[in-house]
């Protein structure tokens, strides 16, 4: 009975019919009740449901909710705070929740020069983060030592830890850091293999807690 009503109100071959909200709502309800069949079902599914793989969905969710750890070292930290502030607003990309504890953070934004005294501390914090984790090296000093080619500054954070995105600038504008964040998001979504593990043949060096526990038991 309802099917007859639907067919009369919105014939399938008329594209205009799909624009009407009422019709669509009724179709959706019919779908849920299991009353749509055949052609109608196919059409409805094509119009209102996206199919994807589980991995892609997870990567999409991960990229849009990257939580940085508060890791301001020097001047770049001020521009990082500026990115979080109202004008440049990293919150619209899901990244405004700066977690103080590295255990709860996904992203380490190394903002500032890494001195030789600080390098072991940075590495420790990085190690305390849980997989998956990414690193943005913000500014010239953490990417390559910057203008400080001397005894006190590590010439680039990627001497002792893997870095996913480098941002040039001294300090980089907040927009530059946002560009880096978006680049990282794209990297997470599309090519999660592109990174230091693929480049240095370090595949299999991840340690998800589940695997470690299983190995212990075995």
């Amino acid at each position, binding site marked *: 009975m309802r099917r007859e009503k639907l067919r009369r109100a919105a014939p399938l071959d008329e594209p205009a019919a799909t624009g009407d909200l009422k019709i669509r709502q009724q179709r959706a309800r019919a779908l849920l009740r299991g009353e749509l069949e055949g052609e109608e079902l196919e059409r409805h599914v094509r119009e209102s449901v996206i199919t994807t793989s589980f991995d892609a969905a997870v990567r999409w969710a991960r990229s849009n909710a990257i939580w940085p750890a508060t890791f301001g070292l020097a001047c770049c930290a001020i521009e990082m705070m500026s990115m979080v502030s109202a004008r440049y607003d990293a919150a619209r990309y899901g990244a405004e929740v700066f977690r103080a504890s590295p255990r709860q953070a996904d992203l380490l934004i190394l903002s500032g020069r890494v001195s030789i005294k600080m390098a072991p501390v940075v590495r420790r914090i990085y190690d305390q983060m849980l997989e998956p984790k990414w690193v943005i090296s913000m500014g010239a000093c953490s990417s390559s030592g910057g203008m400080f*080619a001397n*005894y006190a500054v590590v010439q680039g954070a990627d001497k002792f830890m893997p870095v996913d995105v480098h941002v040039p600038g001294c300090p980089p504008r907040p927009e530059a850091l946002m560009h880096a964040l978006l680049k990282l998001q794209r990297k997470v979504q599309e090519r999660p293999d592109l990174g230091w593990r693929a480049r240095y043949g370090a595949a299999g060096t991840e340690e998800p807690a589940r695997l470690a526990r299983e190995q212990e038991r075995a």
Partner: protein
Amino acid sequence: MSYAADPEAIARELNGAHPGAVLETSRHRGQAALLVDPERVLEALGWLREGPGGGYAFLASLHAADYLPAEPRFGVHYELLCMERVERLRVKALLANPGDGDLPVIDSCVSLFPTAEFQEREAYDFFGIEFRGHPDLRRILMPEDYEGWPQRRDFPLGGEPVIFTHNEHTTPNWYD
């Protein structure tokens, strides 16, 4: 920046109270400085802090400099300030490097100016100048186990050669 107008007069009075403390006076670019004997630095600073012609009770800065190749090599500078008369005075003590791995020694003025605590540690950290009587003389800005005195003139600046295409493969630790 309004330094003492007549360092000679101050030096004469100081030498009157502690003979032989002041070796030289100078007034370069309007900045008055007294060169004192490093063994008498505490007496000089104490007199300047309390003394009748003095009152320089604020130690604005304590820093060291390496005058290599001139001898004596190390200079310890005390920037004093009298807030009542708005007058500054620089006191300078020159120390020679004893050589053989020994450190030049000078008395610590933490007892007179508590602000010197961190600043003397910094001079020790970077120049290896030992301050006799400092309550806690150890490195402050470099890692505790660092070897060498970085801001001495004969200590290399450090860093790494910048890698260009012409020196890429000959630079050590260049990763393939």
